[in-house]
């Protein structure tokens, strides 16, 4: 149990977060869910996870993006890789996703994925980011 990597999932849609948790826990990981930025911050204060899956949290004004910047500035959290999820896709009519929206200052996340994610893809990305961290 203590060998398992811990992943924190932050998404204000609990139903959606649970499905991501199902995917994550099918791998050698344990997952916790936060459905608000406040809840996320509280949990992070108690325990630092090995990876964070973070929704853009559009309903609260793209708070996810703000959080990502906050985390990367925090010395305790900046090493924790972040996979950002968004439901703003070509299909949903927003031109948010241009090429690669990641930016070292404005969107400092390691991966940016559109919803819905395929389990295979998500698990592969988690594996890659966690092993990169091990070797660094």
């Amino acid at each position, binding site marked *: 149990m203590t060998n398992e990597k811990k992943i924190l999932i932050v998404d204000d*849609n609990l*139903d*959606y977060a649970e*499905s*991501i948790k*199902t*995917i994550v826990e*099918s791998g050698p990981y344990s997952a916790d869910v936060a459905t608000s930025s406040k809840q996320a911050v509280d949990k992070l204060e108690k325990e630092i996870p090995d990876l964070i899956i973070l929704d853009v949290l*559009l*309903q609260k004004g793209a708070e996810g993006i703000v959080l990502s910047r906050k985390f990367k500035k925090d010395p305790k959290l900046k090493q924790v890789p972040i996979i950002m999820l968004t*439901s703003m896709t070509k*299909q*949903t*009519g927003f031109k948010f996703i241009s090429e690669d929206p990641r930016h070292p200052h404005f969107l400092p996340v390691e991966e940016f994925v559109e*919803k*819905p*994610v*395929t*389990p*295979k893809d998500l698990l592969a990305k988690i594996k890659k980011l966690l092993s990169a961290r091990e070797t660094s």
Partner: protein
Amino acid sequence: MKEPASILVIDDEESMRDSCSQVLTKDGHHVDTAENGMVGLEKIKAFKPDLVLVDLKMPGISGMEVLEKISVIDPTIVAVVITGYANLESAIDAFKRGAYDFLPKPFTPDELRIIIKRGLERRKLILKSIALEQEKESMRKFFITMVSHQLRSPLVTVQQHLEVILGGIVGDVPEKQEKLLKRARESISSLLTLIKDWLDLSKIETGKLTESFESLSLLPIIEETIESLQPLAEESNITVTLDRDNMDIPMIKGDQQSLKQLFFNLINNAIKFNRKGGQVTISLHERNSHIDIKISDTGIGIAQEDLPFIFDEFHRVRSDETQIVPGTGLGLSIARKIAEAHSASISVESKVGEGTVFTVHFQKI
């Protein structure tokens, strides 16, 4: 009964200011006065009255100038001019500068009341129409935000659940179930596309679009659109060609994004409803006042009786051949709305079994 309004009287004659003020205050209105145009304009800026009475003949800044300045400060303020005896010409001039009504001197209190009443009714209508417009706009924005969040969110969640199941994460999926789940996944995907199209349609308010208009050339827009549709065309072995009888394509005024969408929808249709190995030809023609863009295909064609309806929202021609073609039925409605926003029109000619030609007529700058 009568709603109190705020009225400003601008007249260099003290007796005029006093008598108007008395009559109107007695009727329950809030009245202020100004002895010349300058003071009057300052007061207008300060407290934005509902109605202004302006004497045309004043020393210093003239009544006409005051009128012009009022419409700059706030065009919704109703201005009534007080004219000299039988001076109809001035009244007409005043109307041209934005006055709503005129009151010839000398006038009785009742004549004043009638004019004021008319003017205030007009003011009420103006304000109501502005309020309705704003309400409509905020409802529209709310609708868009609500739809885009509340409808999409559970749909994306369902999609995600399907991905979890189809990914074998919660157990093996027997083939029969896998088939149905995959079809369910496609249905959700179509629904999301439909929502996007519907949102696009409601976003294209003809008034709003013109705000982002610039001078541009249609050629690169069409070329890029053709390029983005090449993969689709290749799937059915369809050749898309761009013909131009004239290298010098004149500019038009428009919004690049929506024009791309317009041509995307038309060329997409030309490819979708085509036969395997067919052709799509796009040509540009310049006339005296217009630029015509023709998009012709060698597709299944549209029957005469269906032609009047094809631009209607959600309309899909029902036939064996069109059944299998994917689409939301909104492509042409969106195209037409974009054209209208550009003061352009779309015409169509078609022969069943042979093909269709859609022509977009743009006005030259």
